[in-house]
């Protein structure tokens, strides 16, 4: 009942954007990984600027509530395509449901919303990330017997669970590997990780031969403890995100590997899909992903994460993930030279 | 003479190292005003708080109507019909005069507070105590003058049908007219058969309204005599030295050596 569409005209005309509408992107937080603000945002902005579409990129700062608020705002603002990196599937699905009821099309970015209604899924495969980490650790360890400690990501982050599962799927297959301790680090906080690892190390009596750390921040914390006991470089540590610090630790030999997920690639893929949708076209996909909860196959654009060791640090720099200047500061300049990074 | 309404027997009370009350015996008789006198720090307020259930006693008996009772807090004592005006008043600064006066015993209609009733009764009681400068009974007590606060505390205690009223220096901050009203009130209460305990440093007031005087000296009862049998200077001597002629603590412990 009541008044219908009559009142709508006023608020629709204000922003003077393109007739097709706009693209809204909601990034998840600033803690699980620094990439969202430091890599994805600029890459997306560049892609959208180039395509000349109106866009709006926001960060939910780790709060599902905030993400819903932002989604409402974007829909209010006239977004016609909404891409989200969900904080959990349920809240993601709720946002997509609300978007659908306003005629807004949605894309899952980086994380699949189980039970959701996204038109596309653009991502690196998180389980593959874990597998790469597992394989990397196995290579660095070399031997067939080793005590391994696990520093997982936040207990409240489903991706952390996926990473860990991927790594276990590789490392658990090696019969000589023993899991001597596994802890989740609340909020991916390196400050908490350092104490947690210190205690894992103490508990194991120092008999740890390899460390699975879910990202470079946690790896740095583990290396700090190893360094105290004169074992930095001797005990391989994994990582993820190819941060400056992570790359430097790899060059210095303290860290065994990291996983690089090119934000440029992923953001580019998202931009392509979103621009296609805004323009009322279909996006190009390279497969589907099963949504077990929603019982459907989601058209997907899947990208390959890359394992980075001292040998291919240059790849990250070539891709624009980091700059040589940032990585090769101060004492790392000579290491860069040795490794041929420029 | 009738049995005392309230009797304390050999009550002791210490705060940590400080032994404040020593084997105190204290009686409150119905229809009488008992003056409790003593030097600063003698333990008068502590005794009142022990009676009121604010402080637990270390040992000793507490008899009401001749029967031992078990009091473990102010609510038990209030239930016995004992009302107290504390020296430190104990008002809630964030509440107004009416709210303070009826605190803990609000008049209700069903579950709803009966503000009409409370406000009228508060206004009556205050008027009877010569309060003339209070702007409104809905004023917060934080904004009252020292004497006005004291009047509110007194008004709060006399609102109820009680059997004993303890007044700890009730007129200390009061003006001349208000003091007069309170002394008259004290007498009226006793004449109505209540047991009244009045603490005061003003010997004139004590001699005027009290039937008995109990003197505390360094936490001990120095004397418990009918007012008729003592004069001004004897009481002062009891207060400051613990003894006066045949009255008081036999040997003055304060001057005894260890």
């Amino acid at each position, binding site marked *: *009942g*009541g*008044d*219908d*569409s009559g*009142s*709508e005209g006023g*608020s629709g005309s*204000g922003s003077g954007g393109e007739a097709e509408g706009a693209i809204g992107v909601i990034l998840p937080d600033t803690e699980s990984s620094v990439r*969202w*603000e430091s890599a994805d945002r600029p890459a997306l902005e560049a892609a959208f600027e180039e395509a000349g579409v109106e866009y709006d*990129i926001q*960060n939910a700062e*780790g*709060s*599902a509530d*905030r993400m819903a*608020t932002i989604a*409402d705002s974007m*829909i*209010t*603002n*006239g977004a016609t395509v909404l891409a989200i990196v969900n904080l*959990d*599937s*349920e*809240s993601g699905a*709720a*946002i997509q449901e609300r978007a659908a009821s306003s*005629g*807004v099309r949605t894309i899952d970015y980086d994380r699949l919303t189980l*039970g959701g209604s996204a038109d596309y899924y653009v991502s690196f495969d998180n389980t593959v990330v874990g597998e790469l980490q597992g394989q990397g650790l196995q290579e660095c360890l070399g031997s067939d017997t080793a005590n391994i400690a696990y520093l997982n990501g936040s*207990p*409240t982050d489903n*991706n952390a669970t996926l990473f860990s599962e991927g790594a276990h799927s590789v490392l658990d297959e090696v019969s000589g590997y023993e899991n001597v301790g596994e802890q989740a680090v609340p909020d991916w906080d390196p400050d908490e990780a350092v104490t947690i690892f210190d205690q894992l190390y103490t508990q194991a009596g120092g008999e740890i031969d390899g460390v699975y750390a879910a990202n470079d921040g946690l790896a740095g914390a583990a290396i700090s403890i190893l360094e105290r006991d004169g074992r930095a470089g001797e005990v391989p540590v994994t990582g993820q995100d190819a941060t400056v610090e992570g790359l430097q630790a790899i060059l210095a030999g303290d860290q065994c590997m990291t996983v690089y997920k090119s934000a440029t690639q992923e953001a580019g893929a998202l931009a392509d899909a979103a621009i296609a949708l805004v323009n009322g076209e279909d996006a190009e996909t390279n497969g589907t992903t099963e949504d077990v909860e929603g019982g459907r196959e989601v058209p997907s654009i899947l990208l390959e994460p890359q394992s980075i060791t001292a040998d291919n640090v240059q790849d990250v720099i070539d891709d624009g993930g980091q700059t040589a200047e940032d990585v090769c500061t101060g004492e790392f300049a000579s290491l860069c030279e040795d490794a041929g990074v420029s | 003479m009738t049995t005392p309404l309230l009797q304390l027997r050999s009550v002791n009370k210490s705060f940590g190292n400080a032994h404040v009350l020593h084997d105190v015996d204290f009686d409150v008789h119905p229809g009488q005003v008992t003056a409790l006198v003593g030097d600063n720090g003698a333990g008068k307020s502590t005794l009142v708080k022990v009676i009121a259930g*604010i402080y637990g006693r270390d040992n000793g008996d507490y008899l009401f109507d001749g029967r031992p009772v078990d009091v473990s*807090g*102010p609510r038990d004592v*209030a239930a016995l019909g004992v009302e*107290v005006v504390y020296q430190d008043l*104990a*008002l*809630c600064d*964030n509440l107004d005069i009416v*709210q303070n006066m009826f*605190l803990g015993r*609000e008049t209700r209609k069903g579950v*709803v*507070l009966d503000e*009409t009733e409370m406000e*009228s009764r508060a*206004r009556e009681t*205050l008027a009877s105590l010569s*309060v*003339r*400068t*209070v*702007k*409104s*009974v809905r004023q917060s007590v934080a904004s009252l003058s020292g004497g006005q606060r004291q009047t509110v505390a007194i008004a709060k205690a006399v609102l109820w049908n009680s059997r004993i009223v303890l007044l700890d220096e009730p007129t200390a901050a009061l003006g001349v007219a208000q003091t007069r009203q309170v002394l008259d009130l004290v007498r009226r209460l006793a004449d109505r058969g209540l047991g009244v305990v009045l603490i005061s440093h003003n010997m004139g007031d004590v001699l005027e309204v009290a039937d008995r005087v109990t003197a505390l000296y360094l936490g001990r009862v120095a004397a418990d005599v009918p007012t008729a049998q003592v004069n001004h200077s004897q009481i002062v001597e009891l207060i400051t030295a613990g003894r006066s002629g045949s009255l008081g603590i036999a040997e003055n412990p304060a001057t005894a050596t260890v």
Partner: protein
Amino acid sequence: MSTTTTSTDGGATKDSVAASDFAHDSTSAATMLDSLKGYVARVRGGDMGSLPAILGLAVLMVVFGLSNDRFFSLLNMANLVVQAGPIVLLAMGLVFVLLIGQIDLSAGVAGGVAAAATALTVANQGWPWYAAVALGILCGAVIGVVIGALVARLGIPSFVVTLAFFLGLQGVILRMIGQGGSVGVNDPVLRGLTIDTVPVTAGWVAAALLVVAFAVGSLLQHRRQVANRLQHHPFSVVLLRIATVAVVVLGLTGLLSLNRSVNPNFPITGIPWVLPLVVVLLLICTFVLDRTAFGRHLYAVGGNAEAARRAGINVPRMQVYAFMICSALAAVSGIVQSSYTGGVSTASGGGNTLLYAVGAAVIGGTSLFGGKGRAIHAVLGGVVIATIANGLGLLNQAAYINFLVTGIVLLVAASVDAISRRRRSASGL
């Protein structure tokens, strides 16, 4: 030097002196102007009440309205109503605890636990929504009782007790829904709380009833006060109040009755269900705090716990009740939140949820030191906080700018009263 007598000018000041005689206790400011003057004087004296929050809110709205023209759109205003719901409810609960001079750091996660219990029993046990909600609120109440008992009986500072619960309950949620997991809220009634609306006619009827009830109540009260010669406001002020309430209630109803959808095929009209829920709880809380002995005793405990004890109030019991009410309202808040986000995750109620809610109560005018606070403070402060998030969400800025701006805006909203207070402190009060 000889006797001096001071005589004062007769006319102008006489009536105030006459009024100050208690027997003629002034029961009313004679006119609306007097009443206004009294209010201004009170404000200048530092008794700001809810004024800073209202002014802060107005400033915020103007700023956001100027920086984004969608801010005042119907859809966004409706969003704001829904978004403010959970924080308002949580802050309302906290008012009870703050009122007695305590703090409850665990209220947010207690709400998370309650929401998880509700969502899980609906999803897995197939309970009907009302039973599940009752269970959730019960969970909250029990948590509150335990906290209250620890604070009241053992005398552990509430900061420590509730910090322990803040951590422990996060463990409970993790256990309930598993690491990194989440539970969906799919029950139509529960989801409907935030995404469905009251039928437009029903909304109008309810709004009209509310206004009429308020008007009749105010007028009756005024008549009784005058009849019994009690303290009362001038009649014109009573009328003004009624008018204000009528304008706000009917205006909001009117706005929310227009179609606000951006999708022409899917009209949205009517009041979101969460609004009547908040209004009803606000009325109940206000009634309890203002009109019952229980509420009076809460204020007394917060103002001077020792005086309350001497007045025969069972202080420990009041503490237990306050924590119980707080956690129960937090449970409602958690359930509304889960309705809005469509699910409960392991992070629900954690993070800064609680700090924001306490901040809301304090901005509204509640004191952290006890004895001062009202349910409406939670509403005002909660709307301020929700407006910041809502408005910033429209501005499309980098995360660090959002953090910065949130902080600054919070400060500005809270310091609107700075000028009058500065005057007060300069005068040495």
